[in-house]
């Protein structure tokens, strides 16, 4: 329950049909009982209707009044949860049956899920929960699979699969695809992506950005495994280092086999992945998260995969990955919208923190237009196969994202469908680009 101004609380209380009066009885047990009431905001008092004579608190006694509401939803449970608590003392008590008492209110609290959605309300309790668990000597539990799933933010791997897939299919078009090298490149790319997700959580935990975020969603606000105590920082660091070690090991082996130019591409990817959130650069704090993400999850991964397969570099994967680079940057961009308050509090000055909502929405439109214009222009110029124009079919998803951004910019949970559609936009566009190349290869 959150603190409420007493006038606000009493104004809210007027909407409830009855109060629950609570006080501590002579035997030390609390007593609570329903009672009608009349609240006065100006006087900060509540006049209670008649109660059974033996149920009346005495003048000067500390009492609480609770006003509670739900709406039953058969087959589901209930919704519209809200309640108000006010505390005060009994200021008068009229004599004789049929007369009530007056309570002078001095403090109040409450919760209304329409003001504070349940998930935000729960998130605000995390610090107290961690303290409670610490006092018990307990830790929250989660199975190893789900812990891995959350800590690595596994579903975001689509960001890696698309550019790696593009690199592979372009190599195939050039007659240079090699299954083993492709798989090794894929594993290395996956490892560095999962490792950077864990690194990002570690740095956001250290900066306080994730802790300051009380409106995380499945698409934003980090994995929360550190904030919830599901994973220790030590274990997170260990997992992060292990994943980077896998990526570096495979990268060196591939470079030794396919050409040392691959090492340079891998080194760029590695530096970008760490510089994104690690001090001293912390590029995301400087509003450079989007270009870093675009570069890493676009040209770097596509070119690296191509190089691993073909044993040489080419402009084709770099150019072909530009649209998905823009779209993955827009995934980060939109997913930072719910994080902006926490990010701002932690000094993480993303573009979303720096820009007004109108500028952010305009920026999204510009990014999407650029991505699809790039697809069309590259196909028209013969840089990419005409079949890649198939990817334009994904563009209507951008309209849904744009509408969601406009309608729910300030409502993190209502924005979730737009964030999901935006991830779908990147995935579908990428898959259609890969499909376009595949058709070009086989036809």
């Amino acid at each position: 329950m959150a603190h409420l101004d007493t006038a606000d609380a009493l104004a809210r209380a007027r909407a409830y049909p009855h109060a629950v009066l609570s006080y501590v009885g002579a035997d030390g047990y609390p007593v609570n009982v329903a009672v009608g009431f009349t609240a006065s905001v100006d006087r900060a008092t509540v006049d209670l209707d008649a109660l059974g004579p033996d149920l009346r608190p005495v003048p000067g006694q500390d009492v609480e009044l609770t006003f509670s509401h739900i709406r039953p939803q058969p087959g589901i449970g209930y919704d519209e949860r809200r309640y108000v608590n006010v505390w005060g003392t009994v200021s008068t008590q009229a004599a004789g049956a049929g007369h009530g008492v007056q309570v002078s209110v001095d403090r109040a609290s409450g919760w209304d899920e329409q003001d504070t959605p349940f998930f935000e309300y729960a998130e605000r309790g995390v610090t107290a929960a961690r303290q409670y668990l610490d006092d018990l000597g307990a830790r929250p539990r989660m199975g190893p699979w789900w812990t891995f799933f959350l800590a690595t933010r596994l579903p975001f791997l689509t960001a890696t699969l698309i550019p790696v897939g593009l690199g592979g299919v372009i190599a195939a078009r050039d007659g240079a695809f090699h299954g083993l090298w492709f798989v090794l490149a894929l594993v290395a790319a996956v490892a560095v992506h999962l490792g950077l997700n864990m690194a990002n959580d570690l740095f956001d935990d250290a900066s306080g950005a994730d802790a300051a975020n009380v409106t995380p969603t499945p698409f934003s606000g980090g994995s929360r495994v550190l904030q919830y105590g599901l994973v220790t920082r030590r274990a997170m660091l260990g997992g992060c280092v292990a994943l980077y070690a896998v990526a570096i090991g495979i990268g060196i082996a591939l470079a030794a086999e396919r050409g040392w130019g691959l090492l340079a591409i891998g080194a760029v990817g590695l530096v970008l992945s760490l510089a994104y959130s690690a001090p001293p650069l912390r590029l995301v704090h400087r509003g450079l998260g989007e270009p870093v993400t675009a570069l890493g999850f676009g040209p770097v991964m596509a070119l690296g995969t191509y190089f691993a397969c073909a044993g040489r570099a080419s402009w084709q994967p770099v150019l072909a990955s530009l649209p998905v680079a823009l779209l993955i940057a827009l995934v980060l961009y939109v997913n930072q919208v719910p994080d902006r308050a926490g990010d701002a509090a932690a000094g993480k000055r993303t573009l979303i923190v720096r820009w007004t909502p109108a500028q952010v929405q305009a920026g999204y439109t510009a990014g999407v237009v650029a991505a699809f214009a790039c697809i069309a222009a590259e196909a028209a110029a013969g840089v990419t196969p005409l079949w890649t124009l198939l990817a334009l079919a994904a563009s209507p998803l951008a309209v849904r994202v744009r509408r969601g951004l406009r309608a729910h910019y300030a409502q993190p949970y209502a924005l979730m469908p737009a964030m999901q559609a935006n991830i779908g936009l990147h995935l579908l566009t990428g898959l259609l680009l890969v499909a376009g190349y595949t058709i070009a290869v086989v036809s």
Partner: protein
Amino acid sequence: MNSGGPDDDERVNPDSGEAAAEFRGGDRAACTVRRVTDLEPLLPAPVRALLDVALVGELTVVDDAGRPITYPLIPLSDGNLVYMTSSVLFSRKLRHIKANPKVCVSLTDPVAVPVEPFHRATIQGDARVVEDELHEGWERLLPLWRAKEPAIDFFLKRRFGIPLFFERSVIEITPHRVLWWEDGRTSDPARVYELAGVS
């Protein structure tokens, strides 16, 4: 099984009932004492009927300063004890109960307690916080919870998304006294059940 309704209660002389005399707010003329046997649920039948359907009850605990503090929660019952569960996310009430186990649960809202005709009840008792197994110990109450809030299964299947919400303590309340208003009018004297024989 004995229905355990109010007519089955052993009526006693209220003037000789020490527990009744202690209750400043009770209507001693209507005081009854129930005795627990293996066959008879502790709580009177009408109170059990309220608890069976109540979506929300008001749990009042006593804070460190000796003041009441009330939490709307789903009340569950097996007919003898009243159960509520609390996530560690909302643990303040648990700390209060551990410091002072005297609690009270009221069933007051005609919307949240959908019975016809409407009654009201207040149950006083001693609470115990059961948290040996926060992760799944509370799940023994899931059938009772599910009956009132079927959507809980939807969220439980996705507990990885709100893991701390499902680290839960059980508040187990042994009732000692029930105040009962047949027609819900609390301006009338309450019928008082002193529940004896609880160890």
